């Protein structure tokens, strides 16, 4: 065994952490640079603009927004404080737009590479299956955070342009300073991003089942819609606390004073459970399957 061989064997056994980071960086750049991803982010950024303009037009005559409590959460408070547009936009996008975007990116993660015939090369380029899967999942999670922040920042800009900012009233009726409000908005964005962890793992698992990226995306989004419908059927209430979208809107509890943690903790626990179960299932499938594309 030559000296070089020993070095190489060592590299194979204990891969350089920088190489993992390099893989992650290249994955991130590839994902974000795709036209599809940019279009998804564009749609997400447009939602707060639409909501903001609609509320502005509706309340031009001085009437209250939201028609007496209809529409997404917080919509009637937007006219008091533009910061509420952040919460309204997240409440409007969380049930569907955000998870759909995540489903598209997650579903494409493995199946898209397989469909394009590049999965083999990724594995040959000594990535290792487990490491590649983890990198893919980390990329999808980064996209969850990016998508949420795009909505939040777009909403904050629109809210600042169209509505007054300043001290805000929590939904419990107490007042908090604008700085604390901003802090809570950031916390809410993080919680919303964390709410998508479950659907991301589900999408990744589906993605390891097929070699067609489109099929994986369609299945993930289809599952999302099905689960959302099941979550609305009152006869199935015994099942609902275990469905991943069930506690999604609990992020609104962060706007109570004091914060009501019960449902928030349940939501985060449920997301962690989905991530563990479907992440492990994706690992079992991906490390055992024949890669021929």
């Amino acid at each position, binding site marked *: 065994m030559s000296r070089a061989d020993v070095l190489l064997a060592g590299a194979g056994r204990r891969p350089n952490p920088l190489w993992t980071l390099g893989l992650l960086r290249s994955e991130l750049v590839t994902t974000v640079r795709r036209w599809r991803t940019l279009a998804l982010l564009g749609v997400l950024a447009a939602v707060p603009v639409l909501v903001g303009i609609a509320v502005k037009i509706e309340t031009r005559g001085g009437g209250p927004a939201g028609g*007496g409590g209809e529409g997404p959460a917080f919509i009637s408070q937007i006219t008091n404080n533009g910061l509420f547009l952040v919460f309204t936009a997240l409440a409007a996008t969380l049930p569907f737009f955000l998870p759909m975007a995540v489903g598209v990116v997650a579903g494409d993660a493995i199946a898209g590479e397989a469909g394009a015939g590049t999965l083999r090369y990724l594995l040959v380029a000594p990535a290792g299956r487990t490491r590649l899967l983890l990198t893919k999942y980390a990329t999808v999670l980064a996209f969850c955070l990016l998508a949420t922040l795009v909505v939040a920042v777009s909403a904050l800009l629109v809210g600042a342009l169209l509505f007054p900012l300043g001290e805000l009233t929590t939904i419990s009726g107490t007042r908090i300073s604008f700085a604390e409000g901003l802090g809570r908005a950031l916390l809410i964005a993080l919680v919303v991003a964390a709410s998508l962890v479950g659907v991301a793992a589900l999408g990744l698992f589906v993605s390891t089942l097929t070699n067609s990226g489109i099929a994986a995306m369609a299945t993930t989004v289809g599952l999302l819609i099905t689960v959302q419908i099941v979550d609305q059927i009152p006869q199935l209430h015994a099942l609902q606390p275990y469905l991943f979208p069930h506690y999604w809107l609990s992020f609104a509890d962060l706007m109570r004073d004091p914060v009501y943690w019960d449902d928030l903790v349940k939501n985060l626990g449920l997301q962690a459970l989905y991530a563990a179960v479907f992440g492990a299932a994706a690992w079992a499938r991906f490390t055992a399957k024949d890669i021929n594309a």
Partner: protein
Amino acid sequence: MAPYESDDAVGAARDEHPRSGRRKAARYAVPVAVVGVAAATIGLVPALADSGDPDLPKISAQQLIEKIATSDVQQLSGTVKISTDLGLPDLGGLENGLMSGAGRGGSGDGSSADPQAKLTELVSGTHTLRVAADGPDRQKLSLLESGAEYSLIRDGKDVWGYDSKSNEVYHSTGAGSGKDREAEPPATPKDFADQALKSVDDTTSVTVDGTAQVAGRDAYKLLIRPKQSGTTVGAISIAVDAKTGMPLKFTLTPSSGGAAVLDAGFTQVSFARPAASTFAFTPPKGAKVTEGKDAPGAREHAPKHGEDFAGGLAGKDGLKVLGKGWTSVATFDTGAKGGLPTGSQGGDLGGFLGSLGDPVSGKFGKGTVFSTRLVNALITDDGKVYAGTVTKEALVKAADAGK
């Protein structure tokens, strides 16, 4: 060893082996194990957390009732979970609409922040409330809704109702201090316990039924049972905090068995002084503010809700009470001959209403009984109403006797 042969690649290479099928299948044990562990955790943790009943010095029922009576908790904050299951037909949104409509009553232009309109929602379903109090002048009661909250804040003379969902504010100024507390419908375990203890007399057996842990505090359980037969009330159990004498949990089970009709208990409670900002309220910019009528008007309406639960309806205009104790039946004459438009007379709506009740007849004539799991009401064809926390048979007997 080639560089790309990481541990995973080795596994993949061995997959060529005949035994590889089993190795592949074994990997799926990991997600299955995760599900198993999660299911076990969900099932076991509540059982383990229930660390048995606390050891407390013995106390007599009389001492415990005195403890409640002398309890003087001025400062507290906590979360209350309240579930009501009256067995009303589930009409979904319609029911809610009717309830709030009825709650609004004659006040005309009702604001959605009007306490009367809002708190009648508590009559059905499960709700989470937050309560905070600092002395007799400052209280706050919040009804937690999905993505919104309804708060009723009392700060000195001002009573504010704030509905964050519609961004509407209700404001009234009560003259006296403390008295206006009665204007709020009962929502906390203490409110219900006070109502229940009012009805304790010789028709009731009161015992101490061991101890329990409620909201992480040691509590005595007070069990109130009617001695009479014919009432729909099975038992009332009140968990009383051993230290402060404050009722922490109130459970009313019907004599027909099954789930509790009313279950209100703290899930979290603290007897520290709440932050002053909790009770400070300024209407947010752009909120619609409705000025309420004077508080005495509101006070007149309110106790209705509470007394329904306690079964005592005495002292109302045109209202007579037949019998005593738990089997007392309230009766009043609506004056409307023909009573309720049932089946044959009332057309579609009458048929619908009639189908909700059971037709009965007796010496009093004919009528329709409307049943819930707690309160039964008989509306006779000559327009008399009998209602109480009694069984259908007892109601007919009372109507016969009252004739």
